[in-house]
């Protein structure tokens, strides 16, 4: 079930589902205790330049979480952790 949340984390890029038919360099939100695959609603889940542009940033992300996916609807820069 999708839940509306806010999370603070660092956006990184790393392999997802290695060796599988979903294998790709995904954009992740690494939070203190968990990590999510970042996706934009309606965005390409395999290659989204707008998300790739966030790699390396620490952000406060707002959106909906479904299992391991964070559907990002809004974000702003967060102070260093």
């Amino acid at each position: 079930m999708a839940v509306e949340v806010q999370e603070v984390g660092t956006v990184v890029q790393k392999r997802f589902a290695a060796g599988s038919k979903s294998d790709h360099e995904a954009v992740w939100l690494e939070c203190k205790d968990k990590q999510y695959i970042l996706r934009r609603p309606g965005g390409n889940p395999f290659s989204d330049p707008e998300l790739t542009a966030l790699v390396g940033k620490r952000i406060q992300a707002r959106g909906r979480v479904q299992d391991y996916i964070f559907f990002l609807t809004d974000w702003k820069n967060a102070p260093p952790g």
Partner: protein
Amino acid sequence: MTNKVIVCNSAALAAKYGANANLIQNGVNRLIAADNARGIQSRYVAIDDAATMQGFHAPPVTNPADTRQNKDAVDAVYGSAAPDYILLLGGPDLIPHQDIVNPVYDGNNDVDPIAWSDLPYACDAPYSQNAQDFIGPTRVVGRLPDVTGSADPEYLLNLLDLAVNYVAGSPASYAPYLGVTASVWSGSTALSLNAIFGSSTDMQVSPPAGPAWPPKLFSRKSHFFNCHGADIDPHFYGQQGTQFPIALDAGLVAGQLTEGTVMAAEACYAAQLYAPAAEPTGRMGMANTYMSSGCSAYFGSTTIAYGEFTTNADADLLCQYFFEAIRAGASSGRAALQARQNYARAGASLSPTDLKTLAQYLLLGDPSIVPVAPPVAAHLIAGAAGEDREHANRRKFLIATGREIVRTKAVSSGRPDRAASATLTQALRTLAQQFEMDEPAILSFSVRNTAGLESVPRALAARAPVASEYHIVTSRRLVDTAPVRLISLLEVEASGDEILRTRQLVSR
């Protein structure tokens, strides 16, 4: 007489659809009447109804979400009635998928803790979450889905009517295909298309092709897609290098399919029946869209799937076997069963990824539908009685085959259940380094049921020792950029400290 059970949870149906549940019951009655006209004796079985289940000597399902209760109920119905076909009516909020623990889950690479599955409903083995227990399916099962989380009865009524009105097509009508591949998997897809259709010259490659497929391609009744798919996403994607363009858009499917279309989809999550409300733009998934657009049989995966670049393995083979059986005139349900059995029988043993592959693929559609009119050997069939005898003999053979697989097949544990020795761990780390895999994680699995492989002439056994363990080696490396062909998952067969065989599940 050929018989079918249509299994549902009436209370869950009523809770979901309210007064409209009666409309769906009427639709089911129309299907039963149509089946009767086709020589199939069908009955509706409410597995939550105490009186009904008493007839099967079993308790009713009291919690529609309880996977064990649902498995037990279907087993009781099958054990008592031995139906030729089991139709699961509804999506997972009416009859849940079974919750098989994903053998290759590690949270970083394979992020599916559960390989949602209808496979256990097709197996004699009792309820379990261990994939190792479900390698010998014996039953013909399919699911006619509704839309998860939606109370609009029109969707399921449409699917029931499509099943009522289906007519088998000629073999020639299923010869042309819409076969689409991610560019990086062209080699593998070409092999599949050649095996199924005798030619791959019509293969469509994404990129550059798609997603607006012209009507002359969309209208073909055979669809084979070897593309990427994503969790809660209504698209398939191609790939060339780091480009992942849309290869198929569910929004472009409606009104394009010819009734009776058969789809085998190798994409991850291709058969995921997610609630449209979970998708940020509210769109139905590919499987639901195909079914409502006239597809009569959709074979796909609920979760992350595996395959090969240039050869055929895992999903490539399972989908190929399915379509071959369809084209040979099998019902869609029998095609799914034969595909599972052929897959399980191939090779010396079943690895952890083999177990996930078997578990995750399911059939959507009425399993009694025969898309391609089969050839009839006139000298063998003598009227309805003869046909029924042939049908029963096929079922007996399939049951015997499934049981033989369980009895004899070497198979990995369904969960990591051992630790590699220090010597082997070092050997695996050295192997990982050779494949540029930093910080490898190792999941280790025992192998059971190896007696059949061990009781061979000694000279042969010496040349090919039997694997006693599988080890999945994955890389957790954090990368900023990486070559697309970086190999990040190895499947290793070992006997004690000796590595026997290494399989690269090559990055795509």
